[in-house]
């Protein structure tokens, strides 16, 4: 489409459409409704990391007054599926049952109870008699594929449903490899070589609203699922599969959601649905915070080795990425997170010889899932630390090295073609890239040239340092993701915009309404957004892969363009213009304006079309898939202060300069960046799920798993550098994920600038920093067993 700038609504920051109601405490979330006769569900979780259930007897629990239903693996269909809320057929293996006779991590499902009160349900859990045959667990991902290692998925029918490597007998949940050119030959000849291995650890999303689901049967015996999900349509499909009922019998309603960050891309509703189907009564299930930490989903821990081969002038001649990720007990997102380790880092630095291999292995630990960043977080860390090391060896400024070698507008990358999600990728050229400006403005904002290296050799006890990194992500999964929207006109010239896209707190309802308002030529308050309800709204894959603004936004724009055409037709009739003159009409502020300045209001158009002449509903549907996944780009800069006596690292200031194309709503875009950055910082410094040697989580609470509060906040600077992405709605690309990837490398590089030691194992705890300063081995690895022996 042609460049429609200047914009009217796009690029402004009106109030988020749902914000005032939320601020006033409106009963808008899943659990804010009470349905009469509602039962309360609780799940019994496995106390063992790996065991067979040899006997399970729920008779005592069933006999407890107030208990209405108890389900064990004997009582539910045995249907292998994946909980990953992905498009069909899913790239994640079918390795999960609603309830199984085997448990695979501490916190795995064993049974479910529905009772009149939560207290009775809790009491009933203690009355379920279970005998386990405890099996040796796999708790170290590095040992998962050892010959003779316990086989976690020994069920014969666990399978991949698309043609991808899947070898559960070796605990291999996913594998991908790719080669362009001849990396080994190029390495051998490269004058500068860097070889870095970094680990990342178990982290959890911690949306402040845990997973909560209410299921009931309506008057027509259909199953209604009111749930905190990012993927209502995938919930409908996967619950239908898992409960063995038709899709048409299910309606999924997504009300306001209290945050997701990827963890609500997981379909965990099936067991609540089954309780409702079995009892015929409404059933509510709400994860406790401890359950949310352990039994929902986590970030896949990883070990990533990056090798760089560079020319003397810094140009990469070979890049190789070797990845191992731990998917935990089930293979949710195992393959695709691993793929993204390569596809969201390698194209940033064009290079003729590229190698990439990734294995994702099963262990008897909590399950990995989708988490903001999605592999890019795991791989950008070693990549950008390696670039920092390369710059030092080359004797160039790290900012200048990136500036010299990053991908540019008009350039393609063979990696885009070679690496998709579970299949080959899509050829694409970069249509927008303002990374240079991000580098420039970010460097100025942090005070790069003044601050760099100032304390390295000083005798101070508390040293300051600055570090940086460059980043890319994507915008939707090309040629896989689809978003759709419908728009209909009301009497007063307002419009209902129905989208399957899922606002989980991001503000996408507002952004999509702004896009519709822009295309229609009406004010924002004339667009009433509704998301999402599988009975009412058109299909959308859901809120993931940084797709909503870019992909669903384009569907909305298309739908609005169609409707605008219909409006103009009616207006032309009112104005008595020949049909051929429609093109000369324009719309502005809810009016159609003719070349001779005569005006027709949208309300007049609506009233005529609904009541007066040639009555019809002005309405449209539009769908969109993308043939590209244009990367947003970013340059992040961290200033840290390291206490060399305690090892404590404090982030003093953080600058995120981001090219997300057109920011449809700049304030909401800033909010995305700030939230992602702070999540990234606390993941880099403090957040970590810790386990003992039996695989039990040691810290499933906000008291012991520390996310940052207001008092930990550094000075935050967000700079959005506008570019114009030709394939996106009004030039937009994505913004939500990219900025969570920066803090690990930027802080690691800043710590190096401050104290001259490199950290490869986050979180960068005081103890690890002090150990690194002393040159002793940091606390043990892998992180999953850290401190287990103490």
């Amino acid at each position, binding site marked *: 489409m042609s460049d429609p700038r200047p914009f009217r609504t796009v690029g402004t920051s009106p109030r988020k459409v749902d914000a005032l109601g939320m*601020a006033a405490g409106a009963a808008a979330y899943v659990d804010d409704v009470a349905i009469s006769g509602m039962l309360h569900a609780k799940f019994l979780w496995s106390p063992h990391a790996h065991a067979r259930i040899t006997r399970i007897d729920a008779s005592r629990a069933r006999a407890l007054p107030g208990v209405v239903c108890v389900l064990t693996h004997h009582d539910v269909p045995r249907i292998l599926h994946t909980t990953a809320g992905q498009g069909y057929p899913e790239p994640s293996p079918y390795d999960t049952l609603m309830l199984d006779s085997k448990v695979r991590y501490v916190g795995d499902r064993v049974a479910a109870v529905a009772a009149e009160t939560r207290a009775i349900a809790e009491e009933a859990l203690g009355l379920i008699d279970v005998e386990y045959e405890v099996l040796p667990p796999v708790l170290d991902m590095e040992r998962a594929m050892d010959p003779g290692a316990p086989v976690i998925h020994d069920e014969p029918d666990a399978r991949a449903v698309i043609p991808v490597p899947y070898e559960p007998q070796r605990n291999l949940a996913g594998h991908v490899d790719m080669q362009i050119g001849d990396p080994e030959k190029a390495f051998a000849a490269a004058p500068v070589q860097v070889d870095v291995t970094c680990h990342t650890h178990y982290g959890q999303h911690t949306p402040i609203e845990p997973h909560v689901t209410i299921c009931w049967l309506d008057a027509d015996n259909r199953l209604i699922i009111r749930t905190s999900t990012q993927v209502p349509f995938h919930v409908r499909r996967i619950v239908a599969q898992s409960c063995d009922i038709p899709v048409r019998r299910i309606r999924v309603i997504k009300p306001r959601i209290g945050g997701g960050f990827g963890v609500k891309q997981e379909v965990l509703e099936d067991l609540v649905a089954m309780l409702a189907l079995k009892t015929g009564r409404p059933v509510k299930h709400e994860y406790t*915070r401890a359950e949310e930490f352990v039994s929902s989903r986590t970030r896949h821990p990883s070990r990533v080795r990056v090798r760089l081969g560079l020319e003397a002038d810094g140009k990469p001649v070979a890049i190789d990425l070797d990845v191992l990720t731990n998917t935990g007990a089930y293979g949710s997102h195992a393959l695709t997170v691993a793929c993204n380790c390569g596809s969201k880092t390698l194209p940033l630095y064009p290079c003729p010889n590229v190698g990439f291999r990734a294995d994702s292995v099963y262990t008897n630990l909590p399950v990995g899932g989708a988490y903001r960043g999605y592999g890019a977080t795991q791989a950008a860390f070693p990549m950008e630390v390696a670039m920092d090391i390369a710059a030092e060896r080359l004797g160039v400024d790290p900012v200048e090295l990136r500036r010299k070698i990053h991908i540019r507008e008009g350039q393609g990358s063979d990696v885009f073609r070679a690496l998709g999600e579970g299949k080959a990728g899509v050829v694409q050229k970069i249509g927008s890239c303002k990374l240079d400006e991000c580098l420039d403005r970010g460097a100025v904002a942090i005070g790069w040239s003044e601050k760099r290296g100032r304390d390295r050799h000083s005798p101070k006890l508390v040293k300051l340092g600055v570090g940086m990194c460059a980043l890319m992500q994507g915008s939707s999964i090309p040629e896989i993701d689809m978003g759709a929207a419908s728009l209909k006109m009301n009497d007063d010239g307002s419009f209902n915009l129905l989208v399957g896209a899922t606002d989980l707190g991001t503000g996408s309802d507002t952004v999509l309404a702004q896009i519709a308002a822009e295309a229609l030529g009406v004010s924002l308050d004339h667009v009433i957004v509704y998301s999402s309800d599988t009975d009412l709204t058109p299909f959308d894959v859901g809120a993931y892969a940084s797709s909503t603004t870019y992909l669903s936004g384009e569907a909305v724009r298309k739908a609005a363009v169609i409707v605008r055409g219909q409006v103009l037709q009616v207006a032309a009739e009112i104005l008595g213009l020949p049909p051929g003159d429609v093109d000369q009409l324009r719309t502005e502020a809810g009016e159609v304006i003719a070349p001779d300045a005569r005006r027709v209001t949208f309300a007049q158009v609506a009233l005529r079309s609904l009541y007066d002449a040639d009555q019809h509903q002005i309405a449209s549907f539009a769908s969109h898939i993308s043939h590209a996944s244009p990367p947003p780009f970013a340059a992040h800069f961290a200033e840290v202060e390291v206490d060399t006596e305690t090892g404590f690292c404090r982030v003093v200031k953080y600058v995120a300069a981001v090219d997300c194309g057109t920011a449809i709503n700049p304030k909401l875009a800033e909010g995305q960046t700030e*939230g992602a950055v702070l999540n990234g910082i606390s993941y880099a410094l403090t957040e970590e799920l810790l386990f003992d040697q039996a695989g039990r989580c040691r810290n499933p609470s906000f008291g012991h798993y520390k996310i940052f509060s207001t008092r930990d906040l550094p000075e935050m600077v967000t700079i959005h550098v506008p570019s114009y992405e030709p394939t996106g709605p009004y030039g937009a690309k994505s913004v939500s994920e990219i900025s969570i990837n920066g803090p690990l490398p930027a802080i690691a590089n800043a710590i190096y600038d401050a104290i001259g030691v490199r950290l490869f194992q986050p979180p960068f705890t005081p103890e690890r920093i002090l150990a690194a300063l002393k040159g002793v081995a940091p606390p043990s690895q892998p992180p999953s067993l850290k401190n287990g022996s103490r």
Partner: protein
Amino acid sequence: MKLTATINGVRRTLEVAPRALLIDALRDAGYTSVKRGCETGDCGACTVLVDGVPLASCVVFAGQVEGRVLTTVEGLGTPDRPHPLMEAMVDAGAVQCGFCTPGMILSAKALLDENPDPTAADVKDALDGHLCRCTGYVKQIEAVLDAAARLRTRAAAGGGAR
């Protein structure tokens, strides 16, 4: 057991179990702005003003508020007549998922009642028990400072009229 308290200006008697927590008593009575985020007093989503003092209602027995004056965010304003803190939160872009917002507004209210002209550091201190995963806190802090200014302006205008 019976629990009598003044909730948002209305004297109410609720039937609660003796071991009921305040969060459950209020949510069951329809005050659903009191959100459950952790059950350990660590996230602040369930904050309620008890005699004007913000407390995490998930670590308070319902029985502890017998005879007290309680305020939830429903008692501060409505979408039609929003409290300046609500408007400031909305205008700053501080409301993303909104789940932490009611609790933060109540703690901010207690702060501004005590200190009408706080610094950013005062706001950070006052909100340190409220976890938010969406925003990075930047816009909430801005919002509270903005609301303070709005309230001071309003007070000055009111004072001038008298």
